């Protein structure tokens, strides 16, 4: 089997195992799920119906097959807590989470990369020391602490930003006003994530840049009389691209956890908070759906980063082609 085949097969295997894990996690909880979750005031008939709909009365293997079938067709059933289809709940929330995570990741990566390169070029400077320290600090401070602080400072003490929510209640009419309102609500969450994230990037990029600058081929680029800008852009940065791209994609699943916490702190209408509510409320369909999506995202990102790395770094490409 060639490179692509092996990678994709591996991803499918992981996905399959995640589905199994997902399934087991929720079905094997002690106690009768329907009884303990659903409103005890429901009639026995209603409970019976729910039991049938979710297949909870069938033997486990059959349940698993049903589960896999419906999950793969993105039919996640009906939420225990709200009674609405889970897919609908998710549909309104996914964009918010995507925007939150996407924007903050891009901004942290950009800021961190810029600072990291600058720090590497100015070794021994104050900037470099700050960069090295900021990484340790941003790792040690719990994200929700920084976010709570920001909230207290800029939403409570100095009320520039709103305290909670994705949009004001009721949302303002008109496209422009709505957009501004949305931005005002998302500003603090995104700002907090960038603040927490740029440090790690900066350190990684700084270390990578220092390593690359010490390489022979950079010395040779200088020997060829190339101007500094050309060397930085065409040789240093170009060499950094493959690992940067990989880290970028690989960090995506990681910030999913950030989404859960951030959305909780700022009470945002997103998938993360949805997951928390589903898990604490023992809402199987909802929790299972959120889980599956997150695992899918993780597997997809790992696969994507593998493939893209192969494209960006010719050394890896060769390895594959000639085998």
């Amino acid at each position, binding site marked *: 089997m060639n490179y692509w085949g092996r990678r994709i097969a591996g991803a499918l295997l992981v996905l399959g195992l995640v589905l199994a894990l997902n399934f087991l996690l929720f079905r094997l909880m002690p106690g009768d799920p329907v009884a303990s979750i659903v409103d005890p005031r429901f009639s026995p008939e209603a409970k019976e119906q729910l039991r049938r709909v979710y297949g909870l009365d069938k033997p486990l293997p059959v349940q698993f097959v049903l589960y896999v079938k419906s999950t793969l067709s993105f039919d996640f059933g009906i939420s225990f807590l709200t009674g609405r289809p889970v897919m609908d709940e998710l549909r309104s929330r996914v964009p918010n989470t995507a925007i939150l995570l996407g924007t903050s990741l891009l901004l942290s990566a950009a800021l961190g990369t810029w600072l990291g390169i600058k720090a590497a070029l100015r070794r021994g400077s104050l900037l470099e020391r700050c960069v090295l320290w900021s990484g340790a600090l941003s790792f*040690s401070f*719990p994200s*929700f602490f920084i976010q*709570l602080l920001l909230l207290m400072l800029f939403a409570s003490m100095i009320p520039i930003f709103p305290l909670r929510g994705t949009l004001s209640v009721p949302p303002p009419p008109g496209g422009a006003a709505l957009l501004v309102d949305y931005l005002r609500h998302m500003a603090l969450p995104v700002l907090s994530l960038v603040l927490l994230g740029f440090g790690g990037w900066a350190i990684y990029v700084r270390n990578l840049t220092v390593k690359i600058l010490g390489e022979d081929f950079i010395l040779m680029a200088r020997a060829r009389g190339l101007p500094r800008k050309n060397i930085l852009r065409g040789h240093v940065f170009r060499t950094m691209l493959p690992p940067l791209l990989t880290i970028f994609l690989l960090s995506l699943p990681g910030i999913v956890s950030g989404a*859960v916490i951030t959305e909780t702190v700022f009470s945002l209408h997103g998938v993360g908070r949805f997951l928390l509510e589903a898990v604490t409320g023992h809402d199987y369909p909802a929790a299972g759906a959120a889980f599956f999506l997150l695992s899918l995202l993780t597997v997809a990102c790992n696969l994507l980063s593998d493939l893209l790395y192969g494209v960006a770094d010719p050394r890896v490409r060769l390895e594959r082609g000639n085998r």
Partner: protein
Amino acid sequence: MRDLRTRWSFWCLLLMVLTALFGGRLFDAPPEREVAAPFSKPLWIDRDLPPTKELRLTADAPSLRVDWRFAPPSRFSIRIDSSAGESGRFVEWRKPGALAPLRLAPLKAGFEADGRDIAFKRSLGLPPFGDASASLFSEQGEYELSLSGEGDFDGSVVVKLEGGRWGVLGTDQRGRDIAALFVAGVRVSLIVGIFATLLATFLGTSLGLASGYLGGWVDSILMRIVDLLLSIPLLPVLMALAALWGKGLWQLVLILSIFSWMGTARTVRALVLTLRDAPYIEGLRGLGAPSGYILRKHLLPETFPVLLATMTLGVPGAILSEAGLSFLGLSDPRVISWGRMLHEAHSFGAFTAGAWWMLLPPGLGIALLCLVFLDLGKFLEERVDPRLRKGVRP
């Protein structure tokens, strides 16, 4: 290990461990006890607000003078304990410059009153919705609390004045002393951090040794499992497990360790792979030494230095995970942890009350603990791998 003593993190850690072990003795009340009004500010802020005080009259001290230089207390209560019943005497309150004292309460066993009780207010001649504190503490100056009449009195009269201030770090939404909670929280963070990491290290080392030494299908399977576990998003899984399997402290430790052994396993495996074919190991095998012996007496000790460093660096991760889960509300509500304190600050309106003293101590505590372990870990890492030491080029 002499240079260990020069590092700030070592002393800090020592201080934290001592606090965890003996800190409780600094306070007379257990941390869950309500000591003052909710959201009281720390004593050193806003000195116009009155502190929370207790005025106590006993047989030996039948009268008390109080120099009151603040605004009136937000609340007060009075409580009389005595073996005798009615005594015909009264508890009196003299305002500064007043000619005659006020009668606060009859000196009767079991008498209790709160400043908000309407009956109590009426007994003082105040309108039913007036502010008893404000009228009793109408000005700044010297007040006197005493007993009328003569005679023996065994028992105590306790007047509790709740101001807006208490203690070093104020109080939370339930009136609990934050300094006491903070000290209690050190214990949880240290316990979870250290034990979860210990367990994960133990697990990772065993599996890493097996994987590296035995190779073959054992190795393949274990590495596949590692990849699988690494590709599962951590927090959601922790959330689910915590919600489903119970919120106890030790469950948390177990769950955290199940998801943190992978890094150690990989490192140990790499180490074993390099050592496995070393000449002296080959020699031992040639002499007929069983694998278990080789692993135990030779390969395992080689891993210790690296393990110590890896473990120390892994503790912050466990501390942060526990804090995160507690913050989300997925931990035992009866267990005081810093994450839990932040959860309560968030859920019970610390913002609207502007109670930043609820936020800063636990958050800074977590950060400090993490930095301590990161610094120690870096120190240990440098000792293990001389290439990383400052100034030496790899």
